[in-house]
């Protein structure tokens, strides 16, 4: 700033002496110097600090004004001014016409007729066969062990060198309802293949971010009660189908006494798996802490019901790579959905 002044003074001096005639013709332009152009580090940092401070002061002013306005509106009984909602990717998601609507009868009819309806209507109990790819890995067996504890009525069979199609036949004979194949790559479980039986669809997921139970701090130990399922955000038709497929792995009669919940949460096409045990508690919350002035309301305590979770079991994320109609048959099968590279071009477009 001082530099600026000096410069201006210099300019004026020059102008004053030599270019007196021109003064009335050209109004003096004030040269704005960016803070980043100041070469002196101390001076520059001082200028930045000042700018930052100014910004913060302005922001605080805005917030205060907004709060005051809303409070005033409330007191007067009018409607408070609209709260500003930040723009998120979920808010600005591209419009997808396949999003399930509540009044879609076709959807419900489809649900009745699809491959999972037998299990989901409890006509058959789910029975899951877990196996691996031909080469096992270091983390694979541990992961499978944990999967066995999460999914009730699941059995592990060693892979051997059987072809997958033969395994599917074998499982059909033994009346399994689904197969899970854990595929490993570079000694880490990498992909999950979910095959519904008898002629259910085959879903190929990519597995990432696997955290085993022993690596979770303060983990809990799951019991053998049937878990509750929570499936979040499966909005589109494809998502609905995938959701039902996942649902068909678990028995539809959760044992609430066990207080176990298994969550599949879909966010931006990533399905996050979590396994918790929960507890409902009553939390005492002191009302009126915000309003420091009115001491009269400080004695009031509100009881609020909260749920608390303790994580147990593995934690991983799935991403759908392809969904194939019918059991496993990559060459001759009909693919309902395949992930292609040009689906990733838009940051606001999701499919599940």
């Amino acid at each position, binding site marked *: 700033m001082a530099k600026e002044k000096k410069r201006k003074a210099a300019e004026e001096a020059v102008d004053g002496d030599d270019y007196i005639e021109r003064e009335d013709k050209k109004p003096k332009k004030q040269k704005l110097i960016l803070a980043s152009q100041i070469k002196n580090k101390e001076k520059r940092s001082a200028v930045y600090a000042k700018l930052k401070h100014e910004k913060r002061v302005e922001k605080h002013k805005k917030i205060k004004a907004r709060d005051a306005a809303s409070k005033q509106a409330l007191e007067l009984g009018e409607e408070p001014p609209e709260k500003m909602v930040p723009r*998120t*990717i*979920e808010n600005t998601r591209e419009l997808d016409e396949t*999003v399930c*609507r*509540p009044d879609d009868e076709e959807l419900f009819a489809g649900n009745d007729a699809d491959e999972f309806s037998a299990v*989901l*209507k409890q006509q058959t109990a789910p029975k899951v066969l877990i196996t691996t*790819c*031909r080469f096992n890995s270091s983390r694979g067996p541990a992961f499978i062990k944990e999967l066995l504890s999460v999914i009730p009525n699941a059995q592990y069979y060693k892979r051997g060198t059987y072809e*997958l199609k033969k395994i599917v036949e074998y499982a059909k004979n033994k009346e399994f309802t689904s197969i899970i194949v854990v595929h490993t790559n570079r000694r880490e479980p990498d992909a999950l293949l979910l095959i519904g039986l008898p002629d259910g669809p085959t879903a190929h997921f990519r597995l*990432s971010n696997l955290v085993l139970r022993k690596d979770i*701090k*303060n983990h*809990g*130990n799951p019991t053998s009660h049937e878990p*509750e*399922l*929570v*499936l*979040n*955000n*499966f*909005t589109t038709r494809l*998502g*609905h189908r995938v*959701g039902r497929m996942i*649902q068909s792995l678990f028995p539809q*009669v*959760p044992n*609430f006494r066990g*207080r176990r*919940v298994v*969550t599949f*949460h879909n*966010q*931006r*096409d*990533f399905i996050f798996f*979590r396994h918790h045990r*929960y*507890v*409902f*508690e*009553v939390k*005492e919350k002191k009302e009126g802490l915000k309003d420091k002035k009115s001491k009269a309301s400080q004695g*009031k*305590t*509100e*009881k*609020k*019901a*909260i*749920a*608390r*979770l*303790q994580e147990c079991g593995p934690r991983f*994320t799935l*991403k759908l790579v392809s969904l194939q109609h019918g059991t496993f048959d990559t060459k001759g099968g009909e693919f309902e959905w395949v992930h292609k590279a040009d689906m*990733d071009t838009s940051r606001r477009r999701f499919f599940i």
Partner: protein
Amino acid sequence: MQNDDVIWDVIRHHHCSYMAKIQTGNFCRNPYNVTGICNRSSCPLANSRYATIRDHDGIFYLYMKTIERAHMPNKLWERVKLPKNYMKALEIIDKHLEYWPKLLVHKIKQRLTKMTQYRIRMVKLSKKVREKIMTVPRKEVKRESRREEKALRAAQIENVIEKELLERLNKGVYPDICNYDEEIFNKLLDKNKEEEQEEEEEEEAEVEYVEGDYELEEEEELEEDIEDMGDFLKANNFDDIEGDEDDLEEQPAKKKAYVSYPLKQDDGTEKVRRKGKKVVVEVERDEDMGNRQHNAM
């Protein structure tokens, strides 16, 4: 003109571009070589009368060269197609190489045997299903991991799960959750009783686990899917129970049910810490619950 010994001398002692020297010996890269070893008797350049078997697209051909054609390199090798049948091929070799040195004929037959064996193996292998390894460009891998992190942060999973569980509790999905504060539990029960007596009875009497929960679970899931589902689904929920409208009214009331009660302390049980030992507490609470149920009923 064509003196095999001279050729061999020159090749062996000076330079042969087909020769590959490795640890175990000298090998010949010449495609017309019968055995593949760099030898005086196996070198196709140093033998003016020579024969091999070569394979093209799964069909075997017998190649022969004689000294009469040594001055026409273009027409040097004579080709005979061999049948796929092993015995017949042997007969044809015998026929063509009748007056040739026995050693060479023997080597050729050995080569034919080896080649048929590996042809069979190749056919078997191609019928088998092998996993195909596909590469993923590093750019994509990085992109996916970045997006996953951001999605995880945006998801706020624990909060969502807690909210969902509370919603289910308020809806009354859990008829006998055993570690809830007695007062609140009773209040909820009373509310249910006041507004919908039939509903209460039916919930306890019918095989709720079988039907009701399934529907609830499924519709819960749908509910997450669709915004502003609320009333429609709740109407569906209690389809088999009378009084849909009452339910609709009840729901918003339940959600605002943060009434103040005096906090009741349980005797002997410590407050469950967030990540404490659950097992012990459960046992104690079960017993208490048993008593409580008697009291409530």
